[in-house]
């Protein structure tokens, strides 16, 4: 897999997968964070739309997922990888969320984004995320 070098929360450089997988369809709602579940952070895990660096973590055998290229994410969207050394952090989990110009999570904008879920309206951040999609409906082999 192609990788890119990003900065960990501690400022240390680490390799991170460039392609990430979001289980499910590419409906408007599935590409919009859920208020509560996705807007609340935990130690080692930032709030945001959950994606995984491997298909195996995003989908069970036979299920489908959507594929995004983190290099194609445009500001303010940013990838926040988990810190697996902390409780709640997962090795393959990444949260996609809006960031401030300083690179910090923009909680207000994230809540604004999640408030659009289920309304029938497409939030502009969902449209922005779509531009980073590189494959659709990839199936995990049975």
């Amino acid at each position, binding site marked *: 897999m192609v990788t890119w070098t990003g900065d960990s929360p501690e400022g240390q450089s680490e390799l991170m997968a460039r392609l990430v997988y979001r289980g499910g369809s590419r*409906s408007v*709602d599935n*590409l919009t964070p859920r208020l509560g579940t996705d807007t609340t952070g935990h130690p080692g895990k930032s709030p945001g739309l959950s994606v995984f660096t491997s298909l195996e973590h995003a*989908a069970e055998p036979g*299920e489908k997922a959507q594929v995004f290229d983190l290099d194609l994410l445009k500001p303010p969207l940013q990838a926040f990888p988990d810190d697996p050394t902390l409780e709640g952090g997962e090795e393959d989990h990444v949260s996609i969320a809006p960031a401030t110009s300083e690179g910090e999570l923009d909680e207000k904008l994230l809540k604004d984004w999640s408030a659009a879920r289920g309304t029938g309206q497409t939030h502009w951040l969902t449209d922005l995320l*779509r531009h980073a999609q*590189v494959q659709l409906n990839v199936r995990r082999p049975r």
Partner: protein
Amino acid sequence: MISPNITSIDSIADYTMVGLHLEVSLVAHPVPYVVEADTRGISLFYPESVDWDAVHEAVQDILSKLAEHLLAAVPGAKWKAGRAGDPRFPLFSYQVYYHLDGDDYDPIVVGVDFAREGFAVRVSGDISGDETGHIYFDEDCEQTVAARTKSVIDGASRIARRLASQHETVLHAIRQRHPRARRG
């Protein structure tokens, strides 16, 4: 307009492969979407050549019969129609059916998706969980058609009819959650 250095033009059905020397200038209007290029030539796709609004309407018209079936069986069933698209993947036309237990987690999505493949469009459909991607039905729901409005509508309509005929599958899914559609 393509100029100069055209070495060959091969046409098969609706498609044209133009053989070119490398380092040629390409001037075209409207601006084409270059989908493939190799040493034999390039394939061009004109985004304007498919009326995606018409395709979406055709799909929704057929899927509305599924909604009618479900509402006849369960008058209070919640559902909605949706559409998504971007320059690379032009259309996903779908309907969402919610579980009858009132929890909006992993509703059932019945949808037809479209992706460009050279001068063609790959049309695929399925009935699946919106968040898990669990597949409830997808038999014989994929085909590749020419990137022309009529061809895309014909292909999409065939697949939409197959999906719309699965009202029992959707009804069962919204009545009784599949183990994969349970939270946690």
